[in-house]
């Protein structure tokens, strides 16, 4: 069951990205999609609309980049509860530190080890 919901919700989020690309050609690039999803996910999360999606589909909602925005938003809100104003600045990045650091370090290693394919 959890796999089916992960598949469906994850798939639907990707279709939203695909429609944004196909229906607005050629203005929207993969970069715009990523920026849009991380920001959109953070906003939906802040108004309480993203957590229900995570509850029903698990990785289907956390693995798309909107889930990254969700972690950033919830991290900031939890940070404020814990540390006040300072938490607004530290909470988001603290909650996503593992993924962001991994992306930069593994990304760099992959770029050093491998060569561009043509």
């Amino acid at each position: 069951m959890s796999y089916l919901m992960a598949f469906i919700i994850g798939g639907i989020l990707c279709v939203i990205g695909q429609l944004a690309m196909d229906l607005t050609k050629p203005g929207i690039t993969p970069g715009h999609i990523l920026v849009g999803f991380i920001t959109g996910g953070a906003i939906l999360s802040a108004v309480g609309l993203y957590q229900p999606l995570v509850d029903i589909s698990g990785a289907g909602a956390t693995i798309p980049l909107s889930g990254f925005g969700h972690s950033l938003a919830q991290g900031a809100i939890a940070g404020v509860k814990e540390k006040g104003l300072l938490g607004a600045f530290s909470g988001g990045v603290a909650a996503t530190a593992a993924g962001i650091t991994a992306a930069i370090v593994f990304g760099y290693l992959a770029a050093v080890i491998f060569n561009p394919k043509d």
Partner: protein
Amino acid sequence: MDEGKSEELKAAEKKEYQNLVNQVKPKPSVLANCLWAFVVGGLICVIAQMILNYLVSKGMSKSDAGSAVAVIMVFLGALLTGIGIYDKIGEKAGAGSIVPITGFSNVIVASALEFKREGYIFGVGARIFSIAGPTLLFGFTASVLIGLISYWFR
């Protein structure tokens, strides 16, 4: 008169040429693109869910397991981009390979590789952020604004 005719001819030729182009050009319909994005994006999430379930079954807390899954998926995305498989998947899958977090590591590696010949510090080191940078910037900014608003209404 002559000029008008040649213009008509030009228009006709243009139309014929367009028809020819349209015949030769492969036409991936929006529907087909969406189907591919749905299936590939969905499958990536299922793989992540499998890893998540495995880690939780080994006694990891849900939030730690979530972070670990992000690290693992990012690693897989970087590796598959490095060996050239991810971009092949992306040709078909479109947003199905961009929206998941593996797509985030894909754009990091792809933009870094493109500038490898400019060196490892200011080539790879700087260009690694050409798409990741704006993404993180907007993500961090949104997060801080949300934090400030929640501080205000606390």
